[in-house]
């Protein structure tokens, strides 16, 4: 999946988690400051994408630095989806 496709999957996941339409995300969009997510919402998004994109997360290996912005999260997903 290319980066734009991954961003669309994040938008769909966030729409589910936040129960409101989320679209138009840019790589620079920050989860905490711009979207006002908390850490559990990020993890719930991760769980939603885990099933959608078919990868497995090890909760003990998570690094919150991967969840700073849409761009860092796409980098993270690229790694785990192809692993």
């Amino acid at each position, binding site marked *: 999946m290319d980066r734009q496709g991954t961003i669309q999957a994040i938008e769909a996941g966030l729409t*589910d988690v936040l129960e409101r339409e989320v679209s138009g995300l840019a790589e620079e969009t920050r989860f905490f400051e711009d979207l006002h997510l*908390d*850490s*559990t919402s990020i993890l*719930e998004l991760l*769980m*939603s994408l885990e099933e959608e994109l078919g990868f497995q997360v090890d*909760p003990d290996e998570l690094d919150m630095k991967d969840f700073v912005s849409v761009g860092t999260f796409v980098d993270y997903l690229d790694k785990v989806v192809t692993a």
Partner: protein
Amino acid sequence: MTTQPATLEGVAYHAPERVVAVEELAERLNLTKSKVQLFRKMQGLKELRYDPEMRFEDLVLPAARQVLDEAEVPLSRVTHLIFAHATQLLAPSTVDVAQELRRQLGLTRATAFSLTQQNCASGMAAVDVAGELLRLDGDPDARALVVTGEQAFTAGIQLIPDTAVLGEAAAACLVAVDGAGAPVRSYVTQTLGEYSNGVRIGKERAADLGQIYPEIFADTMRRAVSEAGLTLADIELLIPHNVNMMSWRQTIQALDFPRERTFLENIPRFSHCFASDVFVNYVTLRDEKRLVPGRHYLVASVGVGTTFAAMVITHRED
């Protein structure tokens, strides 16, 4: 003069036999698939004990009867019964649960009351209060019985959004002063009253609390260890409440305490059982012969609202 320590003369727990997987509660708790996965995988809450057919007294009384039987003390020596619970109202207003427990246990000499303000940290608070009351009375043979146990009788009670799914268990702890049991070497709490709305503080304030939670909890535990005259290196095991894995991952990192000396094995098995967790965990470890006489154990819990509590206990064989 050194204050004589409260001692734990007996601890027991009782839980329904019915085991329920968290995903089986999805409909009752209105959990989406990703919320279920959040609880199962990230929070580590997989199963819990839950039996809506069980009578309240059948949950709460067996552990209390067990510690009274095993202690082999005359019931007339039990001068206090403290029922510690997190859910504010467990029975219709015409029923005083503490008095009812006192009556059913035959503790005719005991003063009975409830303690609930520290929510899921109330069980530990009750041990401290029991010690204080016994010291005030000054009778070395007197005992106080701490009882915990409550049921998830509504969906609202069974869920702390995004944080915990609540299971059912009850516990009892017989307390003396300077007795033969495990001495309580310290007890420290910190309460943040600005979060007193508890589960209703809203997402934004919950996120604020989430940011400071690990450091304040770690600080509370460090103080308890220090007041016990010990260092973290002296602590054999950290015996925590079972709120979830994520908060414990962050908290032991803030405390700089090894994960392998933190007892997290009951989180997936029991989930969070209101004010009973630390007693359930203590008994689990004792029954598995993983508590060493003379070694020190750090017991820690948090009650929503928000009270951070930590206690250091030196284990002795019953």
